[in-house]
C-alpha cells in the first residue's frame, strides 16, 4: 500500500481550482481525500499494479498532467501511510518526490523534530521539547506512562505509536471537508472600528455568495485578525444552523469581532473562513414566523441572480457602496 500526498502549488485564494485537480487524481485511484486548501491524499492500492508503474513514476505522471491540463505545479510525497506520506512531502520539491521507504520508517522518523509529525501542534511540541523529547526517536524511546503523564492518556498513546512508525490512518474518500476563505488586507495599520466592520461585511458577503454558488452551506465560521507584528487572533463560531445566508454569516462575524474588543490593536488583515461545508440540500432550515427573514432570503436570491448576470459588483450592501 502506498499513499501519495499531493500539494498543488496554487496561488492563494484560488482554492476553487482544487475540485478539478482532485478529479485528475481520481483518474488514477478512487480513494482520494481532499486536504484543503491545496492538497490531497491518494491511496494507490491497485493503481500501481493496474498501471504497471511504481509510485515514483505515477507521481511524475500526475505532475505532468497537472501542469499540462491545469497549469499548476505540484509536489508529491509518498509513504506507507497517510501520516508518513505527509511527512515525506516536506522533503519533496518540484520534480522530486519525497519517499519514506517501507522498511526504514523508524530511521526516517528518528531524527525528525516532533513538530514535523502531523497532528503535533505547537502546544504539544512545546511541551515535549520542554522535557527534552525534541525528536521523534526520543519520543518513541520514552516510557509510555511518562508520555501519557505529559500530554494525556489517549494523546500520549497515539503519539508514541505514530512516532514509532505505526500509521493507522486511512485515506477516506468523499470525506470532503473543504472550506472557503477570503481575506481583506489593509494598506496600513488600521484601528478604525468602522473600517474593520466594513471589511467583515464585505468578506461575509463574498463567502455567502460563493457558498450559494456552490450550493453549499457552512457549519462554522472562523475569524482571523492579523496584526502588524505578524501575530494573529483566531476565533471560531459554530453557527446555529448550517447556512449560506450572508446576513447570518455577517452577524456571526460581527459577534466574534465585538468579542475581541479591539481598541489600539494594529490590524493589517481580517480574514474569514467558512468551514464544515455540506451540500445545501442536506441542511435543515429552521422556519420562523418572522416574515423579514424570509424576505431577506428571497432578496438574496434575486441579488444572486443579478450578480450572475451583471458581475459580482452589481449589487452590494449599502455600507460598502460608498
Amino acid at each position: 500500500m502506498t499513499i501519495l500526498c499531493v500539494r498543488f502549488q496554487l496561488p492563494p485564494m484560488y482554492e476553487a481550482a482544487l475540485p478539478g485537480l482532485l478529479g485528475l487524481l481520481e483518474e488514477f485511484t478512487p480513494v482520494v481525500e481532499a486536504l484543503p486548501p491545496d492538497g490531497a491524499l491518494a491511496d494507490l492500492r491497485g493503481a500501481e499494479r493496474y498501471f504497471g508503474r511504481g509510485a515514483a513514476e505515477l507521481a511524475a505522471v500526475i505532475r505532468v498532467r497537472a501542469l499540462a491540463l491545469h497549469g499548476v505545479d505540484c509536489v508529491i510525497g509518498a509513504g506507507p501511510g497517510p501520516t508518513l506520506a505527509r511527512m515525506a512531502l516536506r522533503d519533496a520539491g518540484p520534480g522530486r518526490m519525497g519517499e519514506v521507504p517501507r522498511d526504514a520508517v523508524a530511521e526516517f522518523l528518528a531524527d525528525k523534530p516532533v513538530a514535523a509529525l502531523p497532528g503535533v501542534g505547537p502546544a504539544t511540541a512545546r511541551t515535549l521539547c520542554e522535557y527534552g523529547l525534541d525528536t521523534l526517536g526520543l519520543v518513541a524511546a520514552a516510557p509510555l506512562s511518562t508520555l501519557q503523564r505529559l500530554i494525556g492518556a489517549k494523546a500520549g498513546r497515539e503519539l508514541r505509536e505514530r512516532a514509532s512508525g505505526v500509521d493507522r490512518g486511512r485515506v477516506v474518500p468523499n470525506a470532503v471537508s473543504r472550506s472557503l476563505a477570503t481575506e481583506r488586507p489593509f494598506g496600513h495599520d488600521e484601528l478604525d472600528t468602522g473600517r474593520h466592520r466594513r471589511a467583515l461585511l464585505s468578506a461575509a458577503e463574498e463567502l455567502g455568495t460563493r457558498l450559494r454558488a456552490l450550493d453549499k452551506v457552512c457549519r462554522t465560521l472562523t475569524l482571523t485578525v492579523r496584526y502588524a507584528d505578524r501575530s494573529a487572533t483566531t476565533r471560531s463560531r459554530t453557527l446555529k444552523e448550517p447556512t449560506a445566508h450572508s446576513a447570518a454569516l455577517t452577524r456571526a462575524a460581527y459577534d466574534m469581532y465585538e468579542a475581541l474588543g479591539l481598541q489600539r490593536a494594529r490590524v493589517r488583515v481580517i480574514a474569514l473562513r467558512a468551514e464544515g461545508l455540506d451540500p445545501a440540500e442536506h441542511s435543515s432550515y429552521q422556519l420562523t414566523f418572522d416574515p423579514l427573514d424570509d424576505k431577506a432570503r428571497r432578496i438574496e436570491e434575486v441579488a444572486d441572480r443579478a450578480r450572475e448576470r451583471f458581475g459580482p459588483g452589481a449589487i452590494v450592501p449599502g455600507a460598502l457602496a460608498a
Partner: protein
Amino acid sequence: MSGFTHLHTVSGFSLRYGASHPERLAEQASERGMDALALTDRDTLAGTVRFAKACEKAGVRPLFGTELAVEPPAAAEQGGRDGRGARRRTPVRGGAFIDESSPRVTFLARDGAAAWADLCRLVSAVHRGGEGPPVLPWEECAADGLAVLLGPASDVGRALTAGRPDRAARLLAPWRERFGDALRLEAVWHGRTGTGPGSLRLAARTVGFAAEQRLRPVLTNAVRYADPGQGPVADVLDAARRLVPIDPSGPLDTGERWLKDGAAMLDVAERVVEAAGFRRDTAHRLLEQTRATAAECLVDPQDDIGIGSVRFPEPGLVGAGRRTAQRVLASRAAAGMVLRGYDRRADARTYWERMHRELDIIAHHGYASYFLTVAQVVDDVRDLGIRVAARGSGAGSLVNHLIGIAHADPVEHRLLMERFLSTRRPVLPDIDVDVESARRLEVYRAIIDRFGEERVATVAMPETYRVRHAIRDVGAALSMDPADIDRIAKAFPHIRARDARAAMAELPELRAVAADAERHGRLWDLVEGLDALPRGVAMHPCGVLLSDASLLRRTPTVPTSGEGLPMSQFDKDDVEDLGLLKLDVLGVRMQSAMAHAVAEAERATGERIDLDAIPDGDEATYRLIRSTETLGCFQIESPGQRDLVGRLQPAAFHDLVVDISLFRPGPVAADMVRPFIEARHGRAPARYPHPDLREPLKETYGVVVFHEQVIDIVHLMTGCGRGEADRVRRGLSDPESQGRIRVWFAQAAAAKGYDAETIGRTWEIVEAFGSYGFCKAHAVAFAVPTYQSAWLKAHHPAAFYAGLLTHDPGMYPKRLLLADARRRGVPVLPLDVNRSAVAHRIELESESGKWGVRLALSDVHGISEPEAERIAAGQPYASLLDFWERARPSRPLATRLAQVGALDAFGANRRDLQLHLTELQRGARGARGPQLPLPGGRRTASAGLPDLDDAERLSAELGVLSMDTSRNLMDDHHAFLDELGVTSARRLRSARNGDTVLVAGAKAATQTPAIRSGRRIVFTTLDDGTGLVDLTFFEDSHEACAHTVFHSWLLLVRGVVQRRGPRSFSVIGTAAWNLADLVELRRDGGLEAVAPRLAEKGPAEQGTADAPPATGNDPGNGRRIRWETGYEMHPWADLSPPGERAATGRKLWHQSPGSAG
C-alpha cells in the same frame, strides 16, 4: 501697534505634544516682532526656567502658565457625563485607548509670586492622583492670581462645538463664580471645517457667546510648534502619545499651529469676527482684549519665581537654634580638630590656620547653613549604617573633613580649598555624597524625615528623543513593520536624532541601513524633527533638593512612579538657576558591593572588617593591582585602565590617585601619560620649567596632572592668590578668555622676574592642560574605594565576588566576574534551594577548604523578591513535595530552578523533576486524588526522561542565571578553536610584538571612547575562559569589521599583537567573524563549510565595491568635533555602540528549539 501676544503656547516639555523647544519659541517670537510670549505647557512647568532664560536673551517678556485637564464641576457632571461610561470590554490585543477625555483649560499667572505659587500648587495637585491620567480635581481649581482661558477643549467649548449655547451657559456658571473677572473665552481657528476645535464656526460661536455672556474673548493660536511646516511632526507626536499609528484618512494637523506673527493673527481675527457676524474692524477689539490680558500677567522671573537667589533650610533644622549657623560650624570644626588629633600634631598650626581661613571664606558667602545641612545628612546616613563617602571638589576642604563629610585629610594630600570655594567665586559650591546604591531610597527617606516633605524633593531628569527612540516612535506612527523598525533602530549607535542621516552616510556599520534608506522616505525627516524633544521624565539618579519651607511655592512636584517620592518638575540645571540647594546623593553600586562583602565575611567567619581603617600600603593589594587582574575593582577595571595600571605599576596610594587622574580624555589628549611613565620608571629625567615649580610638580615627575597643580603654578608665577588662580584655570577652557589670560599671565610673571623663555614654556604647559586635568580632590575621593575594593579582592576574594555578583557594580557582565573568580581559584558553588540565600553568599567548600561563592536565588530569571525570601526562609527542604508546598514557587520558577540544578538534591534527573513539578501544579489546581503524586518518600522517582546534556545545562544556566556557572561557555568550542589554531588569552601573554594571531571569545564589553588623535576606535574585550583579550579596531578595519563586532556575541578575530610593557599588550584587529555562525557551519558542514565563509569578504566590504569610494578610510569624512582647547574628537566617538549590550547570556546564539527552556 506692537505684535500679537500668544497666550496659549506649548513647548516640547508638553510630553509628546509640543514640537518645539522653549528656546526656539522665544527666538522666533522675538524675530516675528512680538514683545511677549506665554508658555502654557500641558500639566507641567518644567520648561519655565529655560523659557525665562531664553526670553531674557531674546528680549521677549515671558508669561507663565499651564494647560491642565480639569475635572468637570460636580453640578455639570450630572447633566454632562452620558451613560456610556460603562466599562468597555478589555481588548484581547493591543491594549485600550489612552484616555484623553478630560476637558482642558489654560491657566495664566497674573500677579507676582502668589500667582506662581498658585501655578505650582495646581500642577502639583494635578499629579497627586498618582496612577491614571493627571486631572485637576474641581475643588482644587481655584486661585486668585490666575487668569483662566476656556478654549475649544474646555467643557464650555465642547458644548459650543455641540451647538448647545444653553448648556455652555450652564457650564459657565461655576467657572464664573470661581474666577469672575479673570475668566476669558479663547477663540482658535486652525482652518478646519465643521464645528470642532480649530474650526471657523466654533471660533465665531465662541466670540458670539462671549458677547452674549458679557465675557471677554481672546484670540490665540494654541501653538504647538514654532515654525510653519511642522504639522507632520505634531502628527507623529500625537500618534506616539496615544500609542496609535497616524490614520492617513483621519483628522491630521492642519499645519496652522505655529507661532504666527501679528499680521497673520490679525487676518485670523478678521475672519473670526466676520464669521461671528460683527464688523471687520471689531477684530482690533478682539486683539486688544488679548493684549490687555497679556498685560495683566505680571510675573517677574527674578523676583517672583526666584531665579538667581539662594535658599537654605532654616538654621534651626541643622542644629543651630540659638546661635548663628556660622558659630555652630566653627565650633563643630574645632571639635573635629580635637577629635581627629590634629591639634596635637607637630604641624597643628597649619591645620588651625587653614581651618580659620576656610571658615572666613564660608562666612564671606554666608554658606554656613549649607555645610551644616550636608553634615546633617551625612550624619543621618551614617547612623543608618549605610556606607557614605564624599566625592568631588568638596573633599578639598578641611572644614568638610573636620565636620565628617569627607574622609581624606586634605592637608596631607595637598588638596586646595580654592578649587572648591573661594571668595572670588560666588557660585554655590557642590558637595557630592556617595552612598550604597541599594539603600539610596532609604537615604532619601531619611532626608525627607529630617527636613520634612515641604522642604525636600528629588530632581527630574527629562529623557529626550535620541535616534533609536525617534525611529521607534516615528516608525510605529507610520505603520512600518515592527521587525523593520527594530532592525533599523538597533543598527544605530546612541546618537542624536538629528544626526541620523549624517551617521548613515558616514558610518560603515550602517551601510546596510543606508542602502534602503530611500524606501523609508518620510521616516528620516520626522526622526530628525523629533530631535532632543523630551519624551518622558524620570527621577534624576542622585539629585535631592533641599530648601526652606517655601519649596512647594516655588516648584511643582509630582510623585515618582515607582517609589512615590516627591519630585520637582525641574531638572538639575533649572534648580541651580532657581537657587534651590541641590545635594547630589549618588548611589554607588561598588559601595553596596563592599558593604555586602563585609557583611558576608562577618556572617560566615565572624571577623569584622572595618574598610575605612584598613592599613595603607598593603603589599598584597598592590601586587594584585600591578598584576592587572583588577576585574571588579572600582575605577581600574576597564581595558584601558588595566593597560595603564600595567604600565604605571602603582605601589602606593598616591600612585592610584595619579592613575585615576591620568585615565581621562584630557591627560590622554595632552599626552601626559607617556612622559609620566617614562619619568616614573627612571627612563627619562623629570623636567621642570623652572626650579620654583619643582614643589607643586614634584609628586608627578614634572607632569601636570591635577587642577590643583595648575592653580599652584599660576599662583606661584603671578602671585595672584589661589582663589584668583582657580578663576584663571576655569577661564582656560574658553578660547576667548584664553587670549586675555595669556597676556595677563605673561605680564604678571614678567613682573615677578621670570624670563620670557620660562614664561613661554610654562604657558605651553598650562594651555595644553586646558580644563582637562582632573581635580585631585576627586581623584583622592575615587582612589579610596579603589584601594578598598582591591584590598577586599586580595584578602577576601570570595566575599568580594559575592558582593560584586549581588550588586553588579562594574562594566562587565556577571558571567565574566564568575569566570574571573574561577580563574583566581575561588570555588563557584551551584544554586541549591537548600543552601542558596536571596543574595550571593560565601561558604566553606568542604573539599578544598577554601571559601567559595554560593550563587544567589535573586539571580534566577523572573524570581520575585517575596518568592526568593520565602524559599530562603523555609530552608531546609526534605523533598520536592516539601519544597513545593512550603516555598510555593510559581511553576515557571520551579522549572527554572530544576533546570539549573537547584533541586538536584531531591534526586531524579532535572527533566523528571520538571515533570513532577508540572504534576504537582496540576494536583494543586484540580482535586487532589487519593494517590500521592510522589511515591518513594524523599527521593523523587525517575520518569525515564532524558536528562539535560552538557550543552543544554549550559544553555539553561545562561538562560536562567545569565551566567555560565558550571564551566565557561567557550569550553564547548575548544576543539574547533584548536582546529583553527586560535591562541588562548593565557598563551597570548607570551606572544611577541607584531605576531599575527587568531583570538576568539565571548564579547564582554565594547567601547568607542574619545581618543586624542580624533579617530574613532573600537575597543572590545573578549573572554575565552582562560582570561581576557583586549582588542582594538582602528578606522581602516571598520569597513570590514565594525558591523560584525557590534552585532555578534561570539567573535573570532584575526589581529596583530602590540606590546607596550611587560603586562600591557593588546591585539589590533584586522578581520572579525561571528564565531557562532562559524560554529554552526562547522557542525553542519564540517571544516569545508567554514572555509568559504572565511574566504568571503564581509558584507560591508562587498558594499564598498559598488558604493562610491568617497569616504575612503575615514568614515568621519575628515569631520572632527573640535573642543575649545584644541582637543579633537571624532564626531561618532564616545557613544554607546550599536547593537545590544555585551553578552549577558540571556539572549545567546545557541538556544536550539530542543534545549531546556
